């Protein structure tokens, strides 16, 4: 074999390598540039509500540059938002393979799991909370935690939701998020924690009626009617149209004014309040039971005598309250659930019932 043949073959190989290399260089540059431009166009389209066009561009960008997890993640996000979670899931997996600790990817994974009814969404949320986020990342972690708490409440796991929210409450400095945390704490059955968050919020935002309303709600749920009424009045002082604050102010104030078990009351005042409570229950009963029926056999006869002071027996507060509970039960049997104007009475009596009729 002549060396000239070897040289010719080697030169041909080099030549082919040079041509392929040049072609490949151009191809990859063009591909990356095209992918980047399609990605930006797709992102803009999705942001302006043109999901269909955006998804097509993002799909093409990912097709051209499959190794870029940003493209897969945004495509998955756009597909999820377009209510195509199954497709979104498959692209998201590719993004997560490249970056398994990504906070946004884990959050989207949790959302997709929820949408598809898959188990383990809470674990993805937890990973999102502890994952890597673009700076600044605290708010994103809080949002993931808030979403996790909402999810846990949705699956009736209030204790875990409360545990997550208590953890979040420490970092929830920003008012909108603090309000969300307080609301969810209330829903999760943690009124004391909710009140603590709301109180901090009212200190930071004293002119925010919603902050006061939240505090009122939390105090009300915790059974501290005087505090609830005071907070609700502060909310109404800022915005008189705050409907929930109006309700709380009205009910809590009525309870405070009517409660015979309140501290620092004289015995006479306690009895007066108990009688007043009984009178209101009798009025409520009379309002829904026709007089003719009442004549036939009145279950509230004893109560009426006490209210009218037509009994010779000495009545104490306990006895009046027991009569009130019996009358309330009779009213409920005849008239059904209490109306809004009876909310304060209902609240007081449910409290007495829970305490065994002892104020």
């Amino acid at each position: 074999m002549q060396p000239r043949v070897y040289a010719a073959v080697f030169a041909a190989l080099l030549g082919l390598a040079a041509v392929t290399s040049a072609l490949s260089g151009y191809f990859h540059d063009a591909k990356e540039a095209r992918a980047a431009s399609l990605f930006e166009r797709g992102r803009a389209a999705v942001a302006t509500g043109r999901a269909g066009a955006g998804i097509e561009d993002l799909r093409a960008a990912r097709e051209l540059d499959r190794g870029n997890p940003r493209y897969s993640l945004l495509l998955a996000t756009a597909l999820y938002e377009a209510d195509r979670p199954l497709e979104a899931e498959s692209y998201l997996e590719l993004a997560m393979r490249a970056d398994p600790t990504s906070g946004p990817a884990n959050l989207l994974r949790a959302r997709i799991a929820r949408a598809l009814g898959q188990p383990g969404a809470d674990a993805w949320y937890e990973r999102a909370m502890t994952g890597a986020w673009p700076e600044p990342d605290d708010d994103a972690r809080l949002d993931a935690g808030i979403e996790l708490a909402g999810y846990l409440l949705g699956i009736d796991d209030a204790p875990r939701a409360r545990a997550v929210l208590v953890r979040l409450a420490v970092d929830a400095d920003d008012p909108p998020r603090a309000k969300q945390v307080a609301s969810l704490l209330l829903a999760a059955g943690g009124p004391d924690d909710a009140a603590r968050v709301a109180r901090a919020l009212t200190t930071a935002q004293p002119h925010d009626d919603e902050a006061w309303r939240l505090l009122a709600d939390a105090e009300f749920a915790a059974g501290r009617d005087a505090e609830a009424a005071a907070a609700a009045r502060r909310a109404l002082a800022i915005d008189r149209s705050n409907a929930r604050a109006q309700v709380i102010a009205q009910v809590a104030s009525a309870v405070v004014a009517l409660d015979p078990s309140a501290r620092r009351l004289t015995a006479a005042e306690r009895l007066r309040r108990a009688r007043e409570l009984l009178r209101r229950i009798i009025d409520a009963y009379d309002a829904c039971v026709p007089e003719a029926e009442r004549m036939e056999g009145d279950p509230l006869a004893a109560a009426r005598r006490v209210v009218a002071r037509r009994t010779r027996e000495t009545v104490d507060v306990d006895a009046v309250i027991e009569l009130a509970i019996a009358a309330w039960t009779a009213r409920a049997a005849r008239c059904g659930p209490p109306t809004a104007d009876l909310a304060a009475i209902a609240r007081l009596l449910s409290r007495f019932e829970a305490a065994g009729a002892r104020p």
Partner: protein
Amino acid sequence: MTDTQRFLLLSILIGAFAGLLVTAFHIAIELVSWSALGLPTGARRWSTVLSPCLGAGLAGLFVRWVAPSARGSGIIYTKSAIYVSDGYIPATSIAGKFTACVASIGSGAPLGPEDPALQMGAGVASVLGRVFTLARDDMRHIAPVGAAAGIAAAFNTPITAVLFVIEEVLSGWSAGVFGSIVLSAASASVVSRAFLGDDPLFTVPDMALRAPAELVIAAGIGLVAGVLSRVYAGSLLSLKERAKSWPAGVAPALPFVAGLLTGLVALVLPGVLGAGYRGIDAALHSEFPWLTLIALALAKTALTAVSFGSGVPGGLFAPTLFVGAMLGGGLGGLAAFYWPLAPGAMSAYVLIGMGAFFAAVFRTPMTSIFMVFEVSATYVIILPVMIANTVAYLVSRALMRHSLFESLGTEEGVRFPSVQEMRARRAPRVEDIMQPLDGRDVSGLDEVHPDEPIDAALLKLRAAQALAVVSRGAPPVVLGIISRDDVRKWLWPDPAEHRPAGTPGSAEEPG
């Protein structure tokens, strides 16, 4: 340096050349598809219709008038080179195949680049073999070495390339060239990965076999794939045959018509354009509902038959994968829709269908199993893939006597040995024919061993009526007896059958 060492080194060189060439081929197709079809984002409607028409038509004219050696299937061409023309493949066929297929596939013809890549690889090997003045026998071996390199570079699947060449191109195991095939495939893969990256052909989402019921679905996919393979191959062959009967003046226009049809269908189902890898990727990511997947499978079947039958340059690998993937995904989606036993991920069925249809059409079950793993880089669905492939293969064999490439070869006037035939034609051995002693006396008879080929026994039977069959162990044990009559009955069970002269039992039977 020995001849064997020289051959191995040459295999590496062939792999490097083929890898570079096929990489350039791949890139050229992509660039043409960007400009002709606006892929991957899509193009204007007129471009979608006209591009495949012009691309397929002009490529058809090119192979008809300028480069006839680039016509038809690259696999048939390569097999012809091995079995008919002593490994000779003209250099013009490489350039012709490159140009024609870039034009046709790049502009949207529903055919694939792997079969042409195989032919280009074999062509490169043949040219290098001639440059290095290989002996005639080596020249016949060099074409499959290049073919493996071409497939490995095109698919980024070195194992599949080796298996495909063994199963389809060589139609059997050949220890003489196995090392060279592996080296060239590896070399081509290394080169193509250096330029195109080492990602598998498809990025597959996570999947798992969730319930044993999925195996039943896989078997069902295999069954349907086997039946559809009959339709696919039958329509391809029938259209190719029919195209021959058209008047000479009409034939050059057929690729234009095929391209136009492709463009019109693409207005409704854009996934049918080109090789179809984007469509497969989309199916793997659950982009299409099952009904669309079935429609794509049927449309691609029809368009592939029309395009290939009318002489549009391009290969059958990619469309076969596409049809199988869509069929699998469609049937998997259908099962998910109607069957209460919640089946697994759609992407698993896409891959199962891909492998099953490939096995059924090309009759290469081993290749198809490994191909599924290599193109997807996942092995979690090995069991359903194996079941579906086997069912598809068996159904296809039951419905069609010959594989697609055997039939295409016959249609083009050449007949190659197939793996099936080779298995059936295994040389009989003494143990296949020998009879029990049944008290016969074998003393004084010549001896023969049970594992000897029957030819050896026949030579001894020229001088004797019967031979004693003895074991090779020590001491030897008499296992049976073999006589001329036994051989005669084995060879011609029907006594009326014609017997060639010079064979045992014929009129001219020797000795």
